[in-house]
C-alpha cells in the first residue's frame, strides 16, 4: 500500500490538512489500515520535497497547515494508478514453504498439516465474512477491501485443496524416478522479499 499515492489521491479532490488526510485515508480503506499522524507528515514532507504537493504559505507547521497537489503530483498519480504492481515473481510464501518442508519430512502427515492451515484460513475468512453480514452498515470502500481479502484467502484455500489432491494422487502413484522438480522449486520459492 503506497501511503504516498493514497495521500496524492486524497489531495486530488482539493486542499486538505494533515489530520484530515489521516482521517480520510482510514475511512477510505474501511479503517482496515490504520495510519499514524507521524507517517502522514513525514510523507507530506517528502511529497513537498519532490514537488508533488505544496503547502499553504503559513508559519504553522502543525495540524492547521494545508496542502494541495501540484500539476506534477497529478501526473504522478495518474501514472501510478495505471501501473500494475509487480506480480511477475512469486513472493516468499511461508505457507508454501511449510507444505514443501512437510512433504520431505519423514513421519509427517502432510495432509494433516494442510488441513490445519485450511481450517485456520477458513476461520479467518469467517471473521471477514461476519463484517459483511450487516449489508446496511457496509460502505463501498469497506466492501472492496473485505472482498479483496476474501478472494486472497480463497486462493490460499484453493491452493491447499489442489496440493491435497496432488499429494493424494502422488501417494497412490509414486513417481518412478527421483524427483527432479524440487531443485527448480528451490530456485523459485523465496527469490524475492
Amino acid at each position: 500500500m503506497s501511503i504516498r499515492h493514497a495521500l496524492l489521491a486524497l489531495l486530488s479532490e482539493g486542499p486538505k490538512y494533515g489530520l484530515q488526510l489521516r482521517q480520510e485515508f482510514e475511512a477510505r480503506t474501511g479503517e482496515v489500515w490504520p495510519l499514524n499522524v507521524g507517517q502522514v507528515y513525514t510523507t507530506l514532507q517528502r511529497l513537498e520535497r519532490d514537488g508533488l504537493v505544496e503547502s499553504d504559505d503559513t508559519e504553522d507547521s502543525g495540524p492547521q497547515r494545508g496542502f494541495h497537489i501540484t500539476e506534477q503530483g497529478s501526473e504522478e498519480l495518474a501514472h501510478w494508478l495505471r501501473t500494475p504492481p509487480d506480480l511477475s515473481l512469486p513472493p516468499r510464501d511461508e505457507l508454501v514453504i511449510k507444505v514443501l518442508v512437510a512433504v520431505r519430512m519423514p513421519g509427517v502427515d502432510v495432509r494433516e498439516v494442510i488441513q490445519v492451515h485450511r481450517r485456520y484460513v477458513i476461520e479467518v475468512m469467517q471473521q471477514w465474512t461476519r463484517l459483511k453480514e450487516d449489508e446496511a452498515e457496509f460502505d463501498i470502500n469497506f466492501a472492496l477491501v473485505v472482498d479483496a481479502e476474501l478472494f486472497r484467502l480463497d486462493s490460499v484455500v484453493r491452493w491447499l485443496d489442489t496440493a491435497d489432491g496432488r499429494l493424494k494422487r502422488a501417494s497412490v502413484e509414486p513417481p518412478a524416478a527421483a524427483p527432479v522438480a524440487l531443485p527448480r522449486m528451490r530456485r523459485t520459492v523465496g527469490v524475492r522479499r
Partner: protein
Amino acid sequence: MSFLELQDVSKVYGDGANQVNALVGIDLSVDAGALVAVMGPSGSGKSTLLTIAGSLEDPTSGEVRIGGASLSRMSRNDKARLRRRSIGYVFQDFNLLPGLTAVENVSLPLELDGLTARKARVAGMAALDELGMGDRAGHYPDQLSGGERQRVAIARAVVGERHLLLADEPSGALDSENGEAVMRLVLTACRRGVAAVVVTHDAQLASWADRVIFIRDGQMVDQTTTPTGPEALLARNAHS
C-alpha cells in the same frame, strides 16, 4: 437445541471388492438457527451426508434424528410427510419445474401437503416477496436469470413451516455476487430459526457458516471453532 442429529452414521455402497465406504462414523449436530457448511473434495461423501440428513437415503448404520424424531423408526409415509413439511432442499441446478411459474413452483409443496391452492399461493407469494422476487412470481423458470431461479428454489425450500434447509452446492453455477446473495438468503432463514446445512467446495460460501466441517474419504476430519468477533481482525491489523 439440536434440530438435526447424526450419530455414528455410516453408508456403504456395493460389497466385496466393489465395496465403497461413502460415510464412516459421522457425528453431526445442527442447532435450530445454525448454519453449518460441509467442505471436502469431490467424492468425499458430502452429498451422501446431505441426502441421508434429508431422509432421501437410509444410512447403513447409525442414527439420524430430525426435530428429535428418529428416522429409523419412521414409516416411508412418515418420512415423506416429514420431507414435505419440515425439510427444504436446494440443489445446484435449481430443480424448478419448467411448466410452472415461480409462485407455482414455490407453492406446489404446500399444495401436495394438503393446503388449499389459494392458501398455498398466498404463502408462496409471501416467500417470494421476502426474497425480493414478488414481481417475478408469474414468470416461468426459463424467463428468469440463474440468480433469480436460485432465489425461487430457496423460496420453495423455506416456504411454510420448514425447519431444516439442506443445500448442495447452491451457487455452483452462479457468479460470486449471486453466490453471496444466495448465502445471505440462507443466513436470513437461519436467523429466523431454520437449521441449515450447506455442502460446498467454495471457501467463500462456507465462510458464511457458523461452523464449517471438513470431510475426507467419508470421515469428518476437522471442524472450525466458533469464530471470534470481527473486531479481532481489525485489532490484528492495527497492531501489524
